[in-house]
């Protein structure tokens, strides 16, 4: 997007800033303040939904970095979330580690497992990578299901309410603020990560890996780094998911979930962090509205909620791919540009 008329970046700092103008600062702070005030005027039921959306957004940001920025398609995101969730649950329950340390270790653990399963990427690319992540999904879900000494299998694992410095996050509302703060931190991290050297290396590998290797990048290492970053976010998202849910069970992290996540970034727009927000937010809200609205129309339709959501979601993905492959993030930019020059379009 070109800068609007009359806005000039006069120095390097301003050129590099994510938030460039005073208006953007005001809009950003007001927006965050507005979101932080949600619990004041939204019922607990919807706060619960929004909490879930926030957790998923964190994982989807990771997937966006792997798929959107470095071009490696992954069907294993749900399983990597499970790794994070179980690590957090076990560390906080068995070893009584403080919340933040357990959360970070969950992210790092998921990242390391991701690197392990990303190893074949050094030799293969494209379609074959989908297969290794698919294998990762099935192997991890087998482990979570059957390594009962550690994961308690299909019974699931209880997760206690987290607390920081004695303050316990035991209600939906307090958890909402906790997750919101972590989401903002993750977004900040991701936004900066994709424009530093590492992120530019990701983009170079995505656009043309041969050219990137000729320019001196070690493609294998860059891909593994992308895997680590992606799975780190997945681990954080999964750990928060277990915090939100008070429990971890293997069936939360099914293959369909991973497929949905991939759909979120397609709909949101590949290669933008904002896209992760748009896609996840819009589609998960839509899914929630439909699963509440259909039984309201006719109680007999309850059984059709899941298939209806699947078909609708598939149609949306196909339409987006055919008509607007750049996704909702691009549509949002176009809308902003339209409003900026309205009514005197040039």
């Amino acid at each position, binding site marked *: 997007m070109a800068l609007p008329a009359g806005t000039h970046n006069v120095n390097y700092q301003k050129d590099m800033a994510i938030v460039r103008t005073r208006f953007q600062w005001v809009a950003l702070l007001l927006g965050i303040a507005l979101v932080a005030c949600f619990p004041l005027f939204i019922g607990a039921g919807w706060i619960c939904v929004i909490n879930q959306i926030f957790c998923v957004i964190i994982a989807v940001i990771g997937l966006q970095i792997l798929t959107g920025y470095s*071009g490696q*398609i992954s069907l294993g995101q749900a399983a990597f979330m499970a790794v994070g969730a179980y690590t957090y649950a076990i560390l906080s329950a068995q070893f009584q580690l403080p919340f933040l340390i357990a959360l970070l270790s969950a992210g790092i653990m998921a990242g390391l497992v991701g690197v392990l*399963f990303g*190893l*074949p990427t050094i*030799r*293969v690319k*494209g*379609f*074959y990578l*989908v*297969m*290794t992540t*698919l*294998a990762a999904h*099935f*192997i991890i879900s*087998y482990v979570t*299901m*059957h390594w009962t000494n550690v994961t308690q299998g299909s019974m699931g694992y209880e997760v206690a309410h987290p607390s920081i410095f004695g303050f316990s996050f035991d209600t939906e509302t307090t958890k909402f603020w906790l997750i919101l703060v972590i989401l903002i931190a993750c977004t900040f991290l991701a936004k900066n990560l994709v424009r530093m050297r590492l992120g530019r290396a990701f983009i170079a590998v995505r656009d043309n890996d*041969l*050219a990137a290797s*000729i320019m001196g990048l070690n493609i294998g290492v860059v891909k593994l780094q992308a895997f680590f970053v992606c799975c780190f976010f997945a681990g954080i998202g999964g750990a928060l998911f277990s915090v939100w849910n008070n429990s971890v069970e293997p069936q939360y992290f099914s*293959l369909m979930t991973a*497929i949905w996540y*991939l*759909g979120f970034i*397609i709909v949101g727009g590949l290669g933008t962090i904002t896209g992760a927000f748009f896609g996840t937010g819009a589609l998960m809200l839509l899914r929630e509205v439909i699963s509440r609205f259909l039984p309201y129309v006719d109680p007999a339709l309850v*059984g*059709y909620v*899941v*298939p*209806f*959501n*699947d*078909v*609708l*979601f*598939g*149609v949306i*993905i*196909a339409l987006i*791919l*055919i008509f607007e*492959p750049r996704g909702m993030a691009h549509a949002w930019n176009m809308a902003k540009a339209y409003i900026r020059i309205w009514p005197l379009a040039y």
Partner: protein
Amino acid sequence: MAEFLQATIAGIGMSAVYALGALGFALIFKCSHVFNLSHGMMMMAGGFFALTFNVALGWPLWLSLIVALILGAIMGWGLQYIFIRPLLGQPLITTLMVTIAMLLIVKGLVLAGWSYRSYIPTGPIIPIETLRIGETTFSADYLSAIIIALVAFTGIMVFFRFTKQGITLRATAEDEQLAESMGVRVRAVTGLAWMLAGMAAVLGGLALGSINSINYMSGEIALKVLPVVVIGGLESIPGCIVGGLLLGLSEMYTGTYLEEFLVGFKDVMPYIIMTFMLLIKPYGIFGEVRIERV
């Protein structure tokens, strides 16, 4: 020994299902370069087509199979026409993404149409008796799955070698632009490949239904055709048979000998073998090694 033979027979029977699924996948990948993630769901839908006429409407199996084959061909062609054709010339990653949409739509429609019903064919697909040699039993379901797979593979080999359509299909797979300049209608050929794949999906779904049963979970079982094609080599039709045999046998052997120690391990076995295959020989047993030019 008897146990071993029994596992071998079950493994070969299961590998017939995998090979049939892989056949459809490989046909699509060969001719239109689409990595069809939805093929497992297409197999599930195909199985439902065949068994609805057979079980719910009480038609004889041969008649319902013929009708299902026609429906499967229509399904394959229709999916291609709606989703793949508008994306002609797009990067391969886009077509892969659109198969995710196809997966969701096919799964949703099957779930809406049949919900949680589970079908098993009324009798063996091919009217044969269960064979007993010594202590080993050759179940009619496994035998008929093997026979169907053999017939389908022979049919497809003959089709590729001796018919004009088969030769144009191979030409298109070799070089799309060159084939087009020689007067091959590439779009029609792609449609044909998808129709054949849909029919293979029906056969695979029916064989799967006679061995296990067809229900809403079958799509995930049928997902194992993906390891099969990766091990065999994505574009290779003999690779489907070899990969299918490798996975079917390894799955049944782990099921027979490791089930006491590792419950359910046989379902992960294909994926573990595939991961090692990708590390050692990424392009599969019969796959073409791609050499890239800058």
